[in-house]
């Protein structure tokens, strides 16, 4: 299969997705996905991970099950999701209607020196998600495909999965809060109000 070169810009993609987030809860995988969602506008309902590689989709699952009326968006990297491929199966079994997993697939480990990942070498993440039981899963290469996928990410019955092929262009660092307890408490207070301190 011939390789198709990614053309989309990750910052623009994430900004477009989050412009329509409404009251959605957003979890970001470590590294660039965190900078991307923060660049789109800091929000207390963002949970940015600075570690726990491979765990982003599972954080999203726990959150989606706890908050069935809220949309939960997991925005992560191809390297990050490759470390937790089993979680696709676990999500598939649970069938959360309100969860979307969105991979900024630059086909590289950007954070660690831009080594190629398995997705550059033929591994099809959307195919794996589909086979694991996601109700909708696709690979997005073009602006037109992105336009079609954005409403699905926000509204279609989940679990929904999109691997969005983005360039390896790195954007300026826009760093979120780092301290774990601050991130956690800010999120819980915004979501749960006084119950956050029970």
């Amino acid at each position: 299969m011939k390789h198709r070169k990614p053309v989309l810009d990750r910052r623009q993609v994430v900004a477009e997705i989050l412009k329509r987030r409404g009251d959605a809860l957003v979890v970001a995988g470590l590294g660039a996905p965190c900078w991307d969602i923060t660049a789109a506008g800091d929000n207390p309902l963002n949970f940015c991970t600075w570690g726990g590689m491979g765990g982003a989709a599972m954080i999203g699952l726990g959150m989606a099950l706890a908050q069935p009326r809220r949309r939960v968006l997991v925005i992560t990297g191809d390297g990050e999701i490759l470390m937790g491929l089993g979680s696709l199966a676990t999500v598939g079994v649970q069938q959360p209607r309100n969860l979307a997993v969105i991979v900024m697939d630059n086909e590289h480990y950007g954070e660690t020196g831009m080594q190629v990942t398995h997705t550059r070498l033929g591994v099809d993440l959307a195919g794996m998600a589909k086979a694991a039981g996601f109700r909708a899963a696709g690979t997005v290469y073009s602006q037109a495909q992105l336009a079609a996928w954005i409403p699905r990410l926000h509204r279609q019955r989940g679990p929904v999965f999109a691997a969005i092929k983005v360039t390896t262009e790195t954007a300026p660092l826009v760093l979120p809060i780092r301290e774990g307890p601050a991130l956690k408490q800010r999120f819980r207070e915004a979501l749960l109000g006084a119950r956050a301190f029970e």
Partner: protein
Amino acid sequence: MTTQSEKADNMKIATPERKNRSPVTSHPSRSSPSWPDQLHRVLTDQRMRQVAYVPDSGHARLIELVRADRQMRAIPLTTEEEGVALAVGAWLGGERSVLLLQSSGVGNCINMLGMIQECRVPLLMLVTMRGEWGEFNPWQVPMAQATAPSLAAMGVVVQTADRAEEVVEIVAAAGRLAFNTCRAVAVLIGQRVVGAKQFK
């Protein structure tokens, strides 16, 4: 708190025909101890909604009860670290979760526990021990020996229950400690309690 049936289980362990099956003490599929049923009640009382697990035969009965309970969501995992990350999401979303695993699975959780420690997310792990008491399978021993030290190294409070009659009390207290103080607490349920697996 010790019930009659628990006492009866312990008595059974000491009977001669049990001793004949050396080195085995008991096995969940051959006797049915009451502590898993009582643990299920503790999880209900403490409002645990998401129950994640990779099966161990020591947890078989509890998993059955959880799967039959409509107030709880049973979440089978492909690897134990998924349950650690799940606990973070559940807590952020306002629900409590608990992770059921065997001692080997603790090894799969290590890096993910860093997130729990850094974010001060409450986590209750119920770990059934393998490889420590009358074990037959030598491959279980290394991780059994490393279970408590590696949990401690990741900032998890470790408590052990080596007698059937103390399991429920220890788990109830561990759950309160975890959720009242926002910490990770693991209860190691000894192989003496769950029984060594028979290979015959």
